[in-house]
């Protein structure tokens, strides 16, 4: 029997990270898509950094920032008794930062795809910004939300470098599937590495296929705003 603990850990991590990022990214992306402020490009660049930074660089900085020797890590350790390095909680924080752009960017694109006139039509109808957001804007960018959620989820499952740097590879705690594969290859256990890799490959493909399939179907309906 193969040990599924690393997969369960991966999915648990991805699930928590996706929910946190969804809640954070909707207001943030809404702000980005509406602001005319000069700091917008600065914020966008910061947001996109995890896409271009080598995971080892990001992981290295996070390791330092999250360690109890640094004030952020210290606050968490002193106040909540949570150690953010070599722990599952640390993986959640690191993954949230690592996967942030994958959630923000599609949602920002979604906000920008909504014609101004339907938002204004809602305002003129007497509806406030919050009602307009939940009743008009978000329902009309479902395909963007779905893309953001699934890509973030899949990307969190697929991450390796940052997780290894910040979490190490503690079985049952921080040894997620991608790290487990690396460990098996190092131990020259190619059989298990093969099985784990194949499972990852299949999951990734199925997830992506579902997204593209649903978006393809949705497009026909929502493409045509007018």
């Amino acid at each position, binding site marked *: 029997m193969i040990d599924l603990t690393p997969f369960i850990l991966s999915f648990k991590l991805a699930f928590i990270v996706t929910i946190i990022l969804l809640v954070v990214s909707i207001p943030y992306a809404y702000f980005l898509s509406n602001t005319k402020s000069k700091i917008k490009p600065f914020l966008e660049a910061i947001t996109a950094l995890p896409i271009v930074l080598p995971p080892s660089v990001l992981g290295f900085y996070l390791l330092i920032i999250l360690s109890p020797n640094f004030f952020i890590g210290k606050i968490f350790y002193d106040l909540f008794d949570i150690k953010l390095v070599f722990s599952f909680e640390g993986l959640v924080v690191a993954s949230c930062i690592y996967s942030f752009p994958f959630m923000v960017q599609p949602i920002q694109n979604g906000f920008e795809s909504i014609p101004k*006139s339907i938002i*204004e*039509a809602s*305002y*003129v109808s*007497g*509806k406030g910004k919050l009602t307009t957001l939940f009743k008009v804007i978000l329902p009309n960018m479902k395909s963007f939300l779905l893309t953001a959620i699934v890509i973030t989820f899949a990307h969190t499952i697929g991450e390796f470098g940052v997780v290894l740097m910040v979490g190490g590879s503690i079985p049952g705690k921080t040894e997620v599937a991608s790290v487990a594969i690396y460990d098996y290859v190092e131990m020259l256990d190619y059989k298990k590495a093969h099985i784990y890799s194949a499972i990852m490959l299949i999951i990734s493909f199925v997830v992506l296929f579902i997204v593209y399939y649903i978006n393809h179907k949705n497009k026909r309906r929502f493409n*045509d705003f007018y």
Partner: protein
Amino acid sequence: MIFIDIKKKLYTSEGEILLNAKINIKKGEFVSIRGKSGSGKTTLLRIIAGLEKSEGEIKVFDEIWQDKKTFLPPQKRSVGFVFQDYALFPNMNVLENLLYVNNDKNFALELLEMVGLINLKDRYPHTLSGGQKQRIALIRAIIKKPKILLLDEPFSALDSKMREKLQNDLKLIHKKFNLTTIMVSHLPSEIYKLSDKVIHIENGNIVNISSPLNELLNTKSSEKFTIEGEIIDIINADILNVAIIDIGNKLVEVVISDYEKDNLKVGERVIVSAKAFNLNISKG
């Protein structure tokens, strides 16, 4: 009485202009705004709706919508707005689009009946034709019984037959609910048919406020009649030069002289006028 006195700087393709409009409108009046594109017509409409800020005052039946101290957001202004691109909510069906604005099902059904679209109430916007969408947008704009109905070139994307049907619907609605209506339009026939008063804006300034008759039949005294058109082609047929002119989507041939041929270009707007027997054309 509606009193509007506003100023706003506009950045147009032809540089910076100052929109400066002072208008009085009576209750139940149908007012059209005409003028070249970029003259500030749409902006004026958006300012009345509260979708854009401006300096000055807007007072609607003794309620201050805007002055030095106050600025009511669009939500607090009792307006209906019909957008050029319909702006129906794609995630809601026809009935839901109406009920989102005012949750009064009986009135929604009555309005749908009135414009003859009751059997489409469960359809989604993307399955409707342009004319159907704009009729829904029209009744969606009035379902809250607004104090002012604003229309921004509402029928310009429709073909002439559908346009006529919608103009009739609008006229019906305007009469039935005694709605004070302000419409931006560039179609003289539409303006003539619907409005009591025409406001002509050029470069941000009101150049004329008068009845449709005076505004639209503004011909020069020596000409018997004039029509505007666009030169589609200039053909040299043996000894004659013929200009093909598009007048209201109908093509007309006009014989022109060599001199005129050299001075006119394809694509130019021209005025076709007749004095006694011959048709003359000159640059519009």
